[in-house]
């Protein structure tokens, strides 16, 4: 099926099986490999992207369901890689291997967009769907807090 998707603000014409999960369309066909595969069934969060600003697991959404939606991947989160969440992630030296971090950052950015001042409990709940096998959770918690501060500073 020929389908046009809006990915990181640019239209992409794809010819793929309508049932193909967005994850594989992004990775194999658009060659945006920042969105990672980790489980394929929405349990690990590595493939988190934004659909009209809301976090979704790209492994569990078929391309036919995202026609007309604005899709944002880690590559399109910011123009220069300096989204407040990305900066906070660097300032807390969060990643170890880095494989899960695209998904972590996309989940955190969506959380802060929806709730600019999450409590620690709200933060943990929102980030609980993202697995990090290296165990960077302590730093993720601190980085989300830091990003919230950066975003407030930017607005002030």
């Amino acid at each position: 099926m020929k389908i046009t998707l809006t990915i990181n603000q640019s239209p992409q014409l794809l010819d793929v099986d309508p049932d193909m999960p967005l994850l594989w369309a992004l990775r194999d066909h658009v060659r945006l490999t920042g969105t990672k595969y980790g489980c394929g069934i929405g349990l690990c969060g590595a493939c988190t992207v934004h659909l009209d600003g809301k976090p979704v697991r790209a492994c569990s959404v078929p391309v036919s369901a995202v026609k007309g939606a604005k899709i944002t991947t880690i590559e399109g989160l910011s123009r220069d890689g300096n989204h407040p969440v990305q900066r906070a992630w660097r300032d807390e030296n969060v990643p170890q291997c880095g494989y899960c971090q695209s998904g972590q950052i996309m989940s955190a950015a969506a959380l802060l967009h929806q709730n600019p001042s999450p409590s620690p409990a709200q933060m943990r709940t929102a980030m609980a769907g993202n697995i990090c096998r290296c165990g960077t959770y302590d730093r993720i918690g601190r980085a989300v807090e830091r990003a919230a501060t950066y975003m407030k500073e930017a607005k002030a």
Partner: protein
Amino acid sequence: MSAVNTSRRQFLQAGAASVAAFSLPINLEAAATNAAETSFAPSAFIEIFSTGKIALTVHRAEMGQGIRTTLAMVLCDELDADWKNVTVIRANGDAKYGDQNTVGDASIFLGWIPLRTAAATAKAMLVSAASRKLNVPANELRTESGFVIAKDGKRLGYGELAALAAKEVPPATPKLKAANEFRIIGKYVASVDLHAQTTGALTFGLDVIVPGMRYALIERAPLPDTKLKSFDAAASKSVAGVTDVFAMESEFMAEGHTYAGVVVVAGDSWSCIEGRRALNVKWQADPASMDSPQIRSALEGAVNKSGTIYRSGGDVDAARSRAKKIIKRRYYTPFMTHAALEPPNCTAHVQGTNENTHCEVWAPTQNPGENRERIAEALKISVANVTVNVTAIGGGFGRKSLHDFVLEAVRVSKRIGAPVKLFRTREDDIRSGFYRSPSMQELEAGIDADNAINFWRHHSVQSSQSSTSDGELAKELAEGELLAGASRLPYAIPNVQFEGTHVETPLRRAWMRGVQEFYHSFAANCFLDELAVEAGRDPLEWRLEMLAPSRRLQFFNSRANTEYWWDTGRMMDLIRRAAALSNWSQPLVWVNGEARGRGFAMHVQSSTYVAMVAEVTARPGGDFSIDRVICLVDCGLVLNPDSARAQVEGAILYGLTSCMSAEITLKDGRVAQSNFHDYAVSRITDSPQMLIEFMSNGKTPTGLGEPCVPLVAPAIVNALANAGLKRRYELPLRELA
């Protein structure tokens, strides 16, 4: 992003700021023929260019442990280079880099002195060249941030000296810095890959794209020895995008035993998944196969008998007859698997025929050098015809030091005559991986009239890993499989006996972060804690008594430097610090009437000494929470403090998963688990508060990836008992519904 052989010129043009450029798998072999830049390469690992840029080739695999950053710090410090001019390159599997297998916490331990020596050699040659050029004696020159500087303030950059330095004679014994001269070592440095890691630009194995590449998945047999009966190739081929469907026989190769399977090749990942679903594979039934209950019975049967004695001292039988009280306990741990978030994968391209066959692979491998040899062996070609490009690695934990995932990709590429990316789904990873062996251990000890331990017997029953690494069935455990956390008991106990028994089990075993020390530390630390309770002794004071006086211990004959013999004085320092930091002598305050408890464990691994205190809250009905984990680490001089701390944080979480939820079982002749719903790993909601401290004694730096992992389970189990809950003898602590 495609995996191309970035030439050295491209790499230099990209510059230090363009992180994405050097996250690509770079083939230095190709670059070496493109020597347009003048450069000074005093070793295989260091190259100083006329532009002032410095390339460090790191031959140890980066899987998140920070080795690229840490070795760059070591180089930069010893060379007095400017940090912003240093670029880090991944070594391919070329033999000139020596052993590249990145396992067992050895990268710093083995590598830091050779790298410093190479850097000091380069620095001496740069100074010597400057001395000649400025006509100033070398001892009147100093170095700083990439410059050689004379007393009158004249400065020559390393870049402008590079060509001249290359003509200098290397010093016979280059002088290394004293610890008080370090400028970068011991300081905070952000990871060299940080920008790429936070923008999705870092290229992991699964992200490699080679022109003309196809994708492949394998439906593997349920067990390593199961044979294929039938499959529906036509149904699979009817799925759009599927191009090839064929059977692949199992192959037993040292460390790379591959399962029998059916390969589905297609134009993209999704077509492979759909094509595989249509296969309808039938396997030959294997009636002899053991499921988990039979495995457990076999382990129990073995522990009921005596094992092979690996170490003994004194007379355990005589001591038993004199003991006032004898305590005997059994501990069980199940199969577990690595579950790195990036499943093993490999992109391979085999071209040509017969002896003119060439093979290039791109893989998230911990072991490129051996991969290369195994590929050459499999294709019956010279190793010179094989190139192994190492990508960023999305977690290794030991799994990616094996060869199966690389060899399978090579076989598929050879068969289809095209480049192919062989990937694994999470289900493939969990069901046909390599596993930490299950263990059944019996510990027995006597307490004498003086309330001291008068004998200690430890029998460890496990499945040897040597069948995986040596390519033949193990008959008994290797000595190292007991030394790993069992027979190296540092306490002064007059009569000891360490026994081991190998029991064959159906799954492949291999190293997993923490290795056999994981279950041995669990049993030994829990048992010692229970003995302390039985004897009415404080577990920390009791340990201190049994470790005094400060002494050095060597448990087996080796040529290892005496510096690495265990030092009970370091253990005592650690225990005293842990007591102070956890306020051990004061009971924990109960909150809302809920019982709180703390537990202690101590362990030495990779010549690193670790102590841990876990604090828990016990709830009515047996539920509990882990409130805080305190971890004290003595790994000698800490080179990269923030990365070192990250390793400890990560080890605590990795150990927590193994303690709380990780269990692989066999049911109906196959692995019952398949994904993160039934093989649960720790999440942010499980992450306890952590207090981590390093002992700063300035001793030789030692390993840090593994030693904290084996402490988590015993510290928690001891804390639960301390909080009044039933003492636990089996892992995992939580059963999934």
